[in-house]
């Protein structure tokens, strides 16, 4: 595996300046080729006030974002991959604490990439949600 062709500063510029990323107040951390996205807890993210538990939509957004950012890291493309479809499994209720997410590119084809992402809170090995998605790769030289 070659070294990442995209720097943390470039990923920050690309993903953290987006209005919706600011709305979610997310941050990213790149160590070597391992990218982690952090979604800090705040009350606005709650979907079930009784438990309380995070809204499934917040986890979906986090997982999709880490999938796209990880693809960008692997590809170094000038253009954003486009989401074709995602399937999210909700494995545990999200507690009112910070949430982390990482993704793994299962297959990188010429036009389509398949990505798996997981979100966790307390233990990396005990994910609270997982995403499988397909993404359309837009070639910088073909646009």
């Amino acid at each position, binding site marked *: 595996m070659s070294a990442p062709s995209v720097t943390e500063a470039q990923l920050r510029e690309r993903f953290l300046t987006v209005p919706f990323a600011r709305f*979610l107040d997310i941050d990213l951390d790149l160590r070597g080729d391992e990218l982690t996205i952090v979604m800090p807890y705040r009350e606005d993210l709650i979907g079930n006030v009784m438990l309380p538990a995070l809204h*499934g*939509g917040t986890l979906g*957004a986090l997982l999709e974002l880490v999938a796209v950012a990880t693809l960008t890291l692997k590809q170094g493309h000038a253009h954003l991959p486009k989401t074709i479809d995602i*399937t999210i499994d909700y494995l545990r209720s999200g507690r009112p604490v910070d949430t982390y997410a990482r993704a793994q590119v299962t297959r990188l084809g010429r036009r389509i990439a398949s990505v798996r992402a997981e979100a966790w809170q307390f233990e990396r090995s005990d994910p609270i949600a997982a995403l499988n998605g397909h993404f359309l790769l837009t070639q910088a030289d073909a646009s």
Partner: protein
Amino acid sequence: MTDSPKPPDAVQVVQVMVSATPYARALGFEATAVGDGRVTMRTPYRKDLIGDPETGVIAGGVITALLDHVCGAAVMAAMKERQSIATLDLRIDYLRAAEPGRDIFAEAHCYKVTRSVAFVRAVAFEDSPENPVANATAAFMIASNGGRKMGANMKPPR
């Protein structure tokens, strides 16, 4: 289309589900129609929810949240008694980019409820479900709070 008779309880349950959910409120969701197992919801176009600054297209994550929420609301509108629910899985096909500057609607139909699980289909669009932005299918667990007390999630998992 939400042309079936509207059970008054379902209308109230869905309204509460929007107004009493912090994330739905933060994104500005609003229920526009409620029927028997059918709900339509709207999310307003907002600049702070943009996902692609170059085009002004709203973030996919907002549509994901809208579809998740409207599917949950449809389950609420389909159940005979009020119970807690949680999304088991949610699949979304993104058919095209949403039009910048436009509100997005999502229409969900909970077409099957069993004792433990409910199944839902939903579609997101600007003008008509015939021209969708995204399609979703979801499964929900019923009575998901299952004996857990109020505030159970304030403690880390064992």
